[in-house]
């Protein structure tokens, strides 16, 4: 058994781990990066964000072509060659994982393929194809991520019952797809299949899909699903998947009544559990939270000296960009820099129809934090660019502090919302107030003008809508 030693070792090469390794190398550390899968990039690059976006973009293109008749483009019945689309998606993934290989190598990070487990403080054993190595380092970053939760009665078999990983591989186009879980992943992938032609049913246990997202944005997403023939069943408990002859069945319980859905495939996307098992964390005294996530402080230090943890492993929200940021911070802390978590707001992007982008506080959260919220809204239906591209569903909603006019949060539902939210994130980090955005010239005709107009609307100075007070929210917070 060979022994290798490094200044710091990262376990897991997802968007948290591979970034942490590069940052360590940039700061002059001899870094090792351990990955058990064949390629670098983790769930995000291989089976998550990146391939799903390739599919979503393709599905949007199909829809655009179908809907182009209004604009005089007659190609109503586009056919989709699934194998070709899958190949395109695989090529996208390959490009990205290959890029990470080059980056790690170019920065001098050593990649070790295998499964790591602590054998004592400062040492792990890595079991690979060609045997076991001992790897020593004074500092470790745990970045092993999380995996989909398996529901009782819905064992993932990769055939009938898919996890996101199977669904994103686009093995076939089921006639009827039932998605258990109306969260971000279930809705994003469900929407892809709906756009490509599957019938879609979404089963959600809570009273609403996309819990925690602005209610008006959720209504738009629901409308988008309905327009694509999808059924959304909320407050429904998924009991079990079964077979009735050749047909796949999903038993659900709604309001105490049982209902059986007949379908071709089931996708279960009801959340994640952390990948803490098999790492030998008990060997080194890494403490877990009651829910099983690794506990860290604002410098991503765990309860075990010299061991840091980042990303999904440390709990929700499960966001790749959050993991990357945390990886950078942990690497900087290891390199002796005074670094710590201090972001003002963590943006979120949801690739539904329409897309939803969020950053900072919602109106309710602002009120709970003690602000008197000032809300401004602008609808894409009044924006020249949105009308011209024929994507007018949606709005930009800004929340500010009435007293100081400081910007507190932004929700965008609509075309390119996932891109538009970046400007709002920068504004929040810079401590901008509503006027700062309202007074910044935005190029015309572009979608970001809606952000500017929403800030103007909050100040009662919108140009392209009538300035009337916003309606009070439907469920005002308890005073």
């Amino acid at each position, binding site marked *: 058994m060979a022994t290798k030693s490094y200044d710091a070792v990262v376990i897991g090469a997802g968007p948290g781990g591979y970034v942490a390794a590069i940052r360590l190398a940039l700061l002059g550390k001899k870094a090792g990066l351990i990955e058990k899968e064949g390629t670098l990039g983790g769930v995000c690059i291989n089976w998550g964000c990146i391939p799903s976006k390739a599919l979503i973009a393709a599905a949007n293109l199909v829809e655009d072509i179908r809907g182009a008749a209004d604009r005089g483009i007659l190609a109503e019945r586009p056919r989709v060659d699934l194998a070709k689309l899958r190949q395109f998606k695989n090529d996208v993934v390959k490009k990205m994982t290959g890029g990470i290989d080059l980056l790690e190598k170019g920065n001098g990070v050593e990649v070790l393929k295998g499964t790591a487990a602590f054998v004592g403080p400062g040492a792990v054993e890595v079991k690979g194809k060609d045997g076991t190595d001992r790897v020593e380092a004074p500092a470790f970053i745990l970045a092993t991520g999380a995996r989909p939760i398996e529901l009782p009665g819905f064992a993932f078999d990769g055939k009938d019952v898919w996890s996101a990983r199977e669904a994103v591989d686009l093995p076939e186009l089921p006639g009827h797809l039932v998605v258990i879980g109306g969260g971000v992943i279930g809705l994003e992938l469900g929407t892809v299949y709906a756009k490509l032609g599957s019938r879609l049913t979404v089963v959600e246990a*809570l009273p609403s899909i996309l*819990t*925690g*997202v602005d209610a008006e944005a959720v209504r738009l997403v629901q409308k988008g699903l309905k327009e694509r023939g999808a059924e959304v069943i909320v407050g429904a408990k998924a009991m079990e998947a079964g077979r009735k002859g050749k047909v796949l069945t999903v038993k659900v319980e709604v309001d105490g009544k049982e209902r059986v859905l007949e379908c071709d495939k089931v996708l279960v996307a009801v959340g994640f559990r952390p990948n803490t098992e098999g790492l030998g964390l008990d060997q080194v005294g890494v403490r877990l939270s009651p829910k099983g996530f690794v506990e860290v402080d604002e410098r991503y230090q765990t309860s075990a000296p010299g061991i840091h943890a980042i990303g999904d492993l440390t709990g*929700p*929200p499960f966001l790749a960009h959050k993991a990357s940021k945390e990886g950078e911070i942990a690497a900087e802390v290891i390199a002796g*820099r*005074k*670094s*710590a978590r*201090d*972001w*003002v*707001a*963590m*943006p*979120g992007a949801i690739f539904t129809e329409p897309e939803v982008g*969020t*950053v*900072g*506080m*919602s109106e309710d*959260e602002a009120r*709970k*934090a*003690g*602000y008197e919220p000032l809300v401004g809204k602008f609808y894409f239906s009044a924006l020249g660019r949105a009308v011209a591209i024929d994507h007018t569903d949606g709005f930009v909603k800004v929340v500010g*502090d009435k007293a*100081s*006019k*400081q910007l*507190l*949060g932004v929700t965008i539902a609509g075309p390119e919302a996932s891109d538009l939210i970046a400007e709002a994130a920068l504004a*929040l*980090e*810079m*401590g901008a*107030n509503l006027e700062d955005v309202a007074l910044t010239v935005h190029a015309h005709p572009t979608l970001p003008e809606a952000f500017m107009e929403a800030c103007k609307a909050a100040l009662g100075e919108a140009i392209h809508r009538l300035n009337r007070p916003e309606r009070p929210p439907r469920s005002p917070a*308890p*005073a």
Partner: protein
Amino acid sequence: MALRLVLPDIGEGVVEAEVVKWLVAPGDEVAEDQPLVEVMTDKATVTIPAPGRGRVVRLLVREGEVARVHQALLELEAEPGASPTPPPGGRARVPERAEGPKPEAAPPPAQAKSQTGAKPLAAPAVRALARRMGVDLATVTGSGPGGRILRQDLSAPGAPARAAGPAAPAGHAPSPPGPVEVVPLRGVRRKIAENVARSKRTAAHFTLVEQVDVTELTRVKERLAAAAREQGVKVTFLPFVVKAVVAALKRHPYLNSSLDEEKGEIHLKRWYDIGIASATDQGLLVPVIRRADQRSLADLASEIERLSTEARAGRARPEDQGGSTFTITSLGALGGLFATPVINHPEVAILGLHRIRPTPVAKDGAVVVRDVMHLSLSFDHRVVDGHVGAAFAYEVIATLEDPSLLFLEMV
């Protein structure tokens, strides 16, 4: 049930208070009426008790921060059955709002907690620089729009204003050659720092020093002290000085005034509240003898005794602090030959008393040993010219040298 303890309405005119010291920490179990936190207003230090039994969830204001009245100070997880209702009389127990626990299944989509009203406004690069410099942004006053903290607002702890420039490549402030004990500027110390700095910034200090022959006064004082002791009153020199000062202030009203620079007005005060600067363990306090002109010598003596006893014991009352029109500071044994007292803003003059010592003086052509004391009078030249201040000083001196003149001031 979660309760929020807010800063109560402590007294008239109090709009904010500094959190001086937390007496509990998150996780602590507290009993009803247990002291939770010490806060200091411009008038006094007050302890705020727990509104009921419970467990401290978190502290919402840091030590040294100033909270406004009705601002939440801490979050308390009340015990079931503990009454959250405020008692009559509006004491410290004012739960702001009771919130139920949040449903766990609904994590907010974005980081919301980190941005509260208290979080300082600063761009990411400025925050990173502050961390490298070891500067707590909560202690920095931003000069940017809306109070935003700019790069140039940062300065390393202990260093004068200007910080490391944009470059600061390694990012480390030079380390001191030895260990440094860091003491936060809090409470009375902070108030003193603010007040004397403001005084020095605004007033044009002019100090006049003269000596006083108090041989006669010493004799009178000793005679009166013996008589007063039987009434249970301890007579010192100070009541005589207060009497002499009030008499002189009546004839020189500009020394009993304040300057409103903004309005361009001098306010001559027709009442005489004399502050007595007193050293205490917490720092310098200035309890005030109200309406000193309407009090007899014995009355002044007992009031001075009360004020100084309470101040030294840390029991200074809010109503005895602030609002003086003129201040006397007894520099005493450690006062040196003379000093340059700092005016107690917004007053315009302060009188320093030095120790009395037997001193050879020329009297009637011969050198004799007399009891001599130095006076150091600082006044604000913006309001009081040199000859006016001197005339005041010599009148005080004349009275102290010939205490029989005090009969003229009998009420």
